[in-house]
């Protein structure tokens, strides 16, 4: 009887941590499925503004990780008048991040601190990387429950950054079988909600099990702004070097 009671007690005490492990494992598996670094892609974004006006942009994006430092280089291809505008984002966990912007029309380089606001905006082309590229030790991950999407059961996991004090969070809907992230519901510090639906997953050749969503639709529930992001091409670039992220050729 004592042994039986002890077993029940042990089971009860360890129950929350089972759940925790489970959530973290699911989230980690889902994150690891995504191919997020050392790659090159061309993306097309169709932005629909508050007044239903539409703007189309095309970017060439290069992403790589050099030790702890993550770099992303975005070069605007369209609209034509902004062609060549280049943005290089450097994320360094030990230092504050940096955004460098090059405008070919005047050959000038502008540097900005990588504030969350600026990062959000510049990183808007890939909303999936906000939490998935982070170490799960830096995150609180909690399994909220299960939710159906297209009649298929999915895990619903809530993720917050441990050092975040603003109240930002995200809910990930993860396919129970494939561990693909199908939907991300993000809440900013003011509680404003935006929903990203991920689809058209493509296997990355040479990286078994790794996938990337080729179609992402993000909608802001506050103002109705919508971004329809289509990945036109995606190539793994294990050969990418730090020099590739240098902003070259100034007018003067």
């Amino acid at each position, binding site marked *: 009887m004592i042994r039986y009671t002890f077993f029940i007690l042990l089971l009860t005490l360890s129950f929350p941590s089972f759940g925790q492990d489970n959530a973290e494992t699911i989230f980690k598996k889902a994150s690891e499925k995504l191919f997020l670094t050392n790659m090159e892609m061309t993306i097309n974004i169709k932005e629909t503004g508050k007044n239903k006006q539409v703007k189309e942009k095309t970017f060439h994006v290069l992403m790589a990780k050099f030790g702890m430092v993550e770099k992303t280089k975005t070069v605007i291809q369209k609209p034509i008048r902004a062609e060549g505008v280049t943005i290089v984002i450097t994320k360094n966990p030990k230092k504050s991040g940096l955004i460098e912007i090059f405008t070919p029309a*005047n050959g000038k380089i502008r540097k900005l601190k990588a504030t969350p606001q600026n990062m959000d905006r510049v990183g808007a082309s890939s909303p999936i990387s906000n939490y998935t590229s982070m170490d799960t030790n830096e995150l609180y991950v909690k399994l909220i429950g299960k939710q159906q999407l297209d009649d298929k059961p999915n895990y619903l996991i809530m993720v917050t950054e441990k050092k975040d004090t603003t109240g930002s969070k995200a809910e990930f809907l993860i396919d129970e079988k494939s561990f693909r992230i199908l939907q991300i519901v993000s809440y900013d510090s003011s509680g404003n909600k935006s929903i990203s639906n991920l689809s058209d997953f493509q296997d990355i050749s040479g990286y078994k099990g790794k996938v990337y969503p080729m179609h992402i639709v993000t909608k802001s529930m506050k103002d109705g702004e919508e971004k329809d992001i289509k990945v036109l091409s995606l190539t793994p670039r294990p050969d990418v070097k730090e020099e590739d992220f240098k902003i070259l050729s100034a007018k003067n």
Partner: protein
Amino acid sequence: MQDKIINYRLPIVVSAIVITVLSLFAFPRLKVNATVDDYVPNSIQNKVHLKQLDSIFGGNKMIMVMLQKEDVVNAATLNRLSGLAKDLGKIKGIDRVISPFDAQEPSIEDGVMSVHPFFNHIPDNPVANDSLKNRIVANNLTSRFFSEDFSLVSLVLVKNTQTPDKIIEDIKLVIQKHPGTEEVLIGGMPFIGYSIAGNIQSDLMILLPIAMILMIGMLYFSFKEWKGVFMPFVIVAMSIILSFGLMAFFGWQISLFSILMPIMIIAIGNDYSIHLIARYQELAREDETLSMKQICRQIYKDLNRPILIAGLTTISGVLGLLTHTMVPAAQLGVLTAIGIGFALVLSLWFLPAILSYFKPKRTIKHEKTKKSFINRILNLFGRWITVYPKQLVLISAFITAISIVGIFFLRVDTNVESYFSGKSEVGRSTRLINEKLGGSKFISILFSGDVLSPEVLKRMEYYEKEILKDPAVGHVSSPATMIKELSKGFYTPDEKGYNQIPDDAGEIYQLLEVFSLGGNEDAISQFMDYNYENARLMISLKDGSNSAVKHLLKTINALTKDDSNVQFTAGAGLNEIELADMVVSGQIKSLIFAMAVIFILLSFVFRSPKAGLLSSLPLSIAILVLFGLMGLLGIAVDIATALTSSIMIGVGVDYTIHFLWHFKEERAKGFCHKEAVLSTLETSGRGIVINAVSVIVGFLPLVLSSFTPLKFFGALVVISITTCLISSLLIVPAIVILTKPQFLEKK
């Protein structure tokens, strides 16, 4: 007819009560609409342009939240403002919060330009505060939130177009959660709209009972008999209920104008019953053998025609408001006319029917012989008229001539900011915004085409400089200002290009694209649309008065007349300008309509156009005196005061009708002209004076209104009715004595 009224008195009383009760059931459907812009028809050009601007740039209704203290640059105040900015942004319906904490400050680090938030940290010592003040003054994006003397700091909340002005209540709740030593003031058009709605309700709740109490007091003072109080009171109350019931039934909303409706019915609607009660007392005093039923038959027989004519002319005058282009003014005309019409029917049928159930009050002897104050005044009038008729006409002509001079000083002002007294919350916040923060009312100039070309932007820059010279203008901003500011992030102060519009359209485009990528799309969308096809120059007004805005419009038109990129100038401030033009044209149209109807009606009743002219004379004098006084005293014609003349015509003509009617009867009895005047003044004169006093007393509570135009309206009605009364009892009799018109003789 008088027999039928007495025979069917019960069905008459029951029917009137049933109609009133049915009207009461519609009350829960009544709604308040305080948005002054809604009073303007949708077809007017500025409203069409405003809609176009809204579709391009989104809603632009701004609410300002201000903290006021001797010196706002200190940690406690700025932290409170920061907390407010954060929490106010969470309110549903607020699209965005623009605050000094969004401002950025460019600096050079490691030889390369870098931009940081202006308020990286909030200092907490006096020395650092002084240095912060210097930085604020040097930074255009931050300084616009502070007053020059640092006694005021503000936040701008951009309200969603669909969100009602009631959102102010949520804002107030958030403010309560952030207590502090600073006074918090709210400003901007949505706050004005919200305050108007609140004040309409409180005005109705306060002014209506006051008007009723004053009416009861006046009636008791005049008749010294409860029947004389009860009957007019019940008739007026039933008429008001019917009008509000119909308002709900038609789906019309309570507007600023609607406050006038019950007041007008109280003031005008009891006139007919007053004449009937006065006649009942006369008959009861003259012949003690008469029963109440006989008296009731007699008062109907004696007065039904003059009362009917007076009622119809009043209704015509009030219906003059139908010609008004502003829908709520026309609705006011319809509802008041129906209310007065119901009061007229109730006075002629319901009053004798219900009065017949009571016993007549027999006046004791000494009351019979004692002359009342009113009669003593009327005797004095009689002496003047019979002895100095020419002099009276000349004096009135002289006063009218002086009034005509005053008309030249008359001005029109429909600025909603002037609806509130300077001491009210709205008045204070509006004054502070206008004096210290450059104003909260905006007008925009829309540019279309290649709006990012350096030529167009340089033209905008030139317009900005020129428009800023106008004393009514607070701030002017455009994409030109923004692009110049952006250039500071790419060029050092000693470089060519710093704080300048680039010569290359491609560079301008790239500056904007980069700015947009930096999370500033909201800032861009204030001035440009999504694809940079349209842009606007925004002008804030620190003086929104009609004359100031009209002058500014002239300047803008002269500046931009040859600019093919300029599409139009529009703004909420301009709605009021068009409103002013509508008020003036509405005023003229309703005056002509009412005067024409009265002229035709009285010419027909007395079978002579001379009667029409003579009846119009006191009104014409009163109109000229009214507008002359307004001009001389600096009282502007606005949406409320503009209604005064129509109401005065409707009400004022009654006195002349009653006088002429009774005078004709006296002449028929064989009295000479002078005797007939004296006799008419002694009999009908009393009813006319009580009638006029009741109107004056009815409108008097309006001077307690929360709205300045309604206060002036109340005062002006008092002045104009007094003028009408004096004209009817002095000038008309004097002219009658001098001209001896044929239409007043028995044929």
